[in-house]
Structures are given as C-alpha cells and as structure tokens.
C-alpha cells in the first residue's frame, strides 16, 4: 500500500538542511525497522541473531533502535550474511527517496533468505538459458528436493 507525501512536506524538502536530515533519519528508521522485521520473520531472538552475526545481543538491540545512526557497512554486511540476504548501499536522488518513502511499509521490507527463493532464481535461470520445460522441471526438483514440479 503506497501513500502520497503531503504538499507541505514536499515543499519543506526545498530546504537543503531539511532534506539531508530527513534522508538521514529515514535511513536510520528503514534499517532498524527492516532488521527487526527480518529477524522476527525468521523466528530469531536477538541473542540468536547476535550469535549468528558474531555480535552481542545488546548490539542487535541498539541496531534495532530507529534513532541509532552510527551504521557501518561492515556491520551491515555481517548481518546480511547472518540473515542470508544481499546488502545494497547506493546513492540516490531525492526524487527516488520520495518514492521509497511513499512505498515504505513493513511488508515492503520483507526479504526471503536465499533458501526460500532458490527455486525461483533457478527457474528464471532455466528460462534465460531456454531449457525445455522438462529440463527446467528436473532442475527444479534437484534444487527444491520436491518430487513434483
């Protein structure tokens, strides 16, 4: 479910100090909320995720705080590895930021671990390689371990 930012808020983005602070704050909220969502989706406690990422539980707790702002890419990479997802960090325009904010939702933050999306990835690969449906099916069975496609 997406929203439209109000004209009042869009007008405020004209001010450089405002838009930089807005972007920083949104990044903090986004990472903290996504980290908590992904951990929760996988049924992990903070202690379990901490163990998997080689951190202390108190660190995970701090990272799940929307006001935390001292992120490091290496910490995020360790968390991405523990959650079995890819980490993407990039610069973008404020126009894109507005779109991202408008599309922001807990559901939009959900990312499956590799094991869950493996079948779909290999199916796409088989289509790209123009394998026959039968080959694709065989491949899918090998990947997923399922008897039927």
């Amino acid at each position, binding site marked *: 479910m997406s929203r439209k930012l109000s004209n009042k808020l869009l007008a405020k983005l004209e001010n450089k100090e*405002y838009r930089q602070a807005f972007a920083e704050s949104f990044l903090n909220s986004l990472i903290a*909320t996504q980290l908590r969502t992904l951990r929760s989706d996988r049924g992990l406690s903070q202690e379990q995720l901490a163990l998997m990422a080689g951190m202390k539980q108190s660190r995970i707790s701090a990272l*799940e705080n929307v006001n935390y702002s001292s992120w490091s890419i290496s910490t995020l990479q360790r968390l991405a590895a523990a959650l079995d997802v890819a980490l993407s960090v990039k610069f973008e325009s404020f126009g894109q930021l507005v779109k991202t904010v408008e599309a922001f939702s807990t559901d939009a933050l959900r990312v499956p671990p590799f094991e869950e999306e493996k079948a779909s990835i290999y199916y796409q690969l088989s289509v790209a390689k123009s394998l026959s449906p039968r080959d694709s099916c065989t491949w899918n069975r090998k990947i997923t371990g399922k008897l039927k496609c």
Partner: protein
Amino acid sequence: MPNSRWELYDYVDHRGRNVIAEWIDSLQQRDQALMDEKLLVLEEIGPDQALQTRLLAGPLRNSRRKITSIYKIHAKGTVQLRPMLCKGPINNDVELTLLVGAIEKGRELVPANAVDTAEDRRGEILQNPNRREKHE
C-alpha cells in the same frame, strides 16, 4: 495480516489552533525533518512495532505516578524531541493523536506537566471529537 496504515491526528485548542503543527513549525529545520520523518514511519508501522524499535515509549506515568494512556515519541535531533500522543482516542485500533509538543532535557520533560496536559487534552477530544484534525 494485511498491512494497514494508522491515521495520525493533531490536537486543536479551543480557538481551533493546531498546536502540534505550530510546535513542529517552531522547531529548527533539522528537528522538523526528524519529526516529520518519524511520524511518517509511525503511521506505517503502528504503535506496537514503534515500541519495539524504540520510536515510542510508554505508557507514561502522570504527576500523581499513575499509569496513563499517554506515550511519547523518541526522536534524537538537536534536542531530544518527545511529543506526547495517545492511541485513538476515538478508535484505538487505527488512530493515533498527537497531544502535546515536548522535549526532554536531562531526563526531564519540558514542559514538565506534558503528560498531565496530554491526559487533559485526550479527555477533551473524547468529549468533543472536533478538537483534533488530520495530521498533515
């Protein structure tokens, strides 16, 4: 569970002034940005997840040490922004109402009676639902 957005309202005083919008507009640019952004996130994730990610704290105690229906937002700007709000109070499942603009200095709320004022204003809205308007 389908993802539904919470609706955010601002308290308006007896003269029809939106005191929440006035408070946000009075903040420095950086703090306005933080407040606007945190409120957008709050609308999306709702109070339960906001408590888990420490965007919200509460319920708070009033000056008589009694637990109230009031919560405070945590936003760390050039000052510690702590506006007071409540669930509902008309529909507690889908609405939040901002009641008082406040900050925290040295663990003390400014204004010091922010929770009591928020409780009073919540009561005013329950008596007269026109004493609030949609947050913009």
